[in-house]
């Protein structure tokens, strides 16, 4: 019983450990520095987006448009390179991401549209905008050497992207657990009415949460475009399931109020090692999708069935 509870509590670590074990047994040289750094770099894209998604899910929101934001920000960053130069264009890409998040926030907070529907709509809108800007063609960047330098491995294992991801996750952890704003985020997700009555503004919190999520999706998109030296309107269309799977594997609850940054880190690493292992074994992409989907469903079902819930009638009514 007690062991079971401990396993449930630290299941992210258990799952990650098992995944790494299986992967290292099946894939020779999986635990080598090169493979790990490659896997980590791959995972960082999902991870950066998952950081924003973690914040939104804790606040009982969701953003289905992150994949489209990812593509749009990357396109902006590449298309503006000739006129602005590489770094200002990258900044513009980030701003585009944050702006996309702000549009979602506006729909949800000001117009009170259900976040699922709102971001479903903007997912379509941002994706269409990406196609429109590029005429549905990939756009090349100006400096092909940049992608090489961005992919350089530092300290034997980190690329710029993966270092950014790890740093951001650790900062998020401190922010969520130690700061007033972080705690208020949980309050808003758990019971928005109560938070409001205590002088916390749920609307503001949610709005900023969407901007945060848009910014990080944008950051991931800009980095993707710079490392591939391409902006493409089809980028990121398959990311959503992986991102949600990573966050949910990490123990963040879809219904709001619970979640952790370290959990998300564990979830991202799990998904990344799975993907990497499968790629090394030349497993077709669609089978990888099946595995990602199965993990997502399995974890959510597990969470539902073994969650140490409150006593039957002691549960308070979370209003919505």
């Amino acid at each position: 019983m007690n062991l079971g509870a401990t396993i449930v509590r630290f299941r992210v670590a258990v799952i990650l450990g098992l995944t790494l074990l299986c992967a290292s047994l099946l894939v020779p040289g999986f635990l080598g520095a090169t493979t790990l750094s490659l896997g980590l770099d791959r995972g960082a894209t999902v991870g950066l987006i998952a950081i924003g998604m973690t914040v939104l899910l804790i606040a009982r929101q969701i953003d289905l448009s992150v994949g489209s934001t990812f593509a749009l920000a990357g396109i902006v960053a590449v298309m503006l390179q000739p006129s602005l130069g590489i770094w200002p264009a990258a900044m513009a890409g980030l701003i585009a991401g944050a702006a996309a998040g702000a549009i979602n926030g506006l729909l949800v907070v000001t117009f009170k549209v259900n976040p699922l529907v709102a971001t479903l709509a903007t997912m379509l809108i941002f994706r269409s905008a990406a196609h429109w800007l590029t005429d549905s063609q990939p756009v090349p960047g100006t400096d092909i050497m940049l992608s090489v330098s961005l992919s350089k491995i530092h300290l034997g294992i980190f690329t710029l992207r993966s270092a950014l991801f790890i740093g951001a996750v650790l900062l998020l952890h401190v922010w969520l657990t130690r700061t007033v704003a972080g705690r208020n985020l949980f309050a808003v997700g758990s019971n928005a009415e109560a938070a409001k009555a205590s002088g916390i503004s749920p609307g503001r919190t949610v709005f900023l949460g969407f901007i945060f999520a848009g910014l990080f999706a944008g950051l991931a998109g800009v980095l993707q475009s710079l490392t591939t030296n391409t902006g493409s309107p089809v980028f990121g269309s398959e990311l959503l399931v992986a991102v949600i799977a990573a966050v949910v594997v990490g123990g963040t609850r879809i219904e709001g109020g619970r979640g952790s940054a370290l959990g998300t880190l564990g979830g991202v690493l799990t998904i990344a090692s799975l993907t990497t292992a499968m790629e090394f074994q030349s497993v077709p992409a669609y089978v990888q999708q099946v595995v990602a989907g199965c993990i997502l469903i399995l974890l959510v079902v597990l969470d539902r069935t073994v969650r140490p819930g409150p006593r039957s009638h002691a549960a308070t009514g979370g209003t919505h």
Partner: protein
Amino acid sequence: MAASGSALRMRGISKTFPGVKALSDVSLCAEYGRVHAIVGENGAGKSTLMKILSGAYPPSAGTTEVDGAEVRMRKPADAQKLGIRMVHQELNLVPDLSVAENVYLGRMPRRRGFVDRAAMLRDTKAVLEELGAAIDPKVRLGELSISQQQLVEIAKAYSAGPRIIVLDEPTSSLSEHETAALFRILRTMKAAGIAIIYISHRLKEVLEIADDVTVLRDGRLIDTRPAAGITAAEMIRLMVGREVTNVFPKTPSEIGTPVLKVVGLGDGRDFQDISFEVRAGEILGLTGLVGAGRTELARAIFGLTPASEGRIEINGMAAAITSPAAAVKAGIAYVPEDRKDSGIIPSMSVRENISLPVLRRLSRLGRVSMSADRRLATKYTRDFAIAPPDPERRIEQLSGGNQQKAVIARWLSTSPSVLILDEPTRGVDVGAKAEIHRIIGELVAGGMAVVMISSELPEVLGVCDRVVVMRDGRASPPVARAEFSEERIMALATGEAAA
């Protein structure tokens, strides 16, 4: 903090919503170190007045003074800055944060930019101890019982060092025992010079705790006077505008053979080894403290969360109740505890709400017969005097009492032999309460067996033929009407010897 004198003065407060006047020209004066009770039927304007006081709504007219200075409150934060704290009827707590974080929600102490958790835990512990509540400040709030959460809510208001505390129906989820503990806390606060505004339906409690009483009716101020010179009957007369002589009249009925028999029922968690029987024409009261397992027992008998041990017999035959559908088939009907939460379907009409359990019987080849559906709804709307008498109206537009009547009506078309009512009159006004009692009386007179769960002792003693008291998931032997007394029931409910 001032020890005495006028804390709050509201003058000529009116509130108009589009097309409706919710409050007109209401004045109120609360003083430091006194408990000021506000009573009135549902819809009398109590909640609106409190929302104005807490800054949730601006008044359409009138002024509010705190410590003699006129103030304007546009949002809850404004009221909080003035030292006004609310203890809401619906708990305003965050289940996923710790007790300490809940107490300090919106004003957590900081140290170097981070939450000062040590200070927060220390101070919360001190406040909870002062209030006599044994609750660990580190535990996740969602793991506490409702009454413990209520105490946390009070600790939250108290720890902010308020000058005025407003409690809106604070005892609605507390047992009598816990209510007594709450009153001790209120007296502590009173002694500390806090002005307390206390809103309640329960006149007995008002008489016990209040120094002053204000009666509202239809959005108007009827009277404000010292509690010392007023009786419950007088308050009721002021509230409803007429004299109500017997609050809980008992309809006589003939008691027959056992209909529902429960033997050794248990779910391995909330209740164990429950045995009792209910006879035709009888109202069996089921009372006890909140959390004693009454609702869980009722849900098990109705198959919502089937029991794991014991058996249920209907008319002498063993019945396997594995789902609500099976319970309905066996002749059991159930009116759940919280009408808004699990009684009515707000988006549907009264007609659709009533015919829900018998839809398949009203159908041919899958199609619901509209004429049969209408006939059924019209019949019960008339029989139960549901107002307004229009079955096509959306049920959420009816008053609480009329909604409850429709929920009871829903079951009669299944011709049940046992009706289980869980707190059927909670939150309905005095007039509707009497009507619901009349309906229950008619049902038992017609030979139905009724199990009525209620926390309100006067109601239980007034209406029931026998009472089973639950404590910590176990049931007492039934107490017969001849042996009824509040002391006896309370002794069984709390496990303390009768005084």
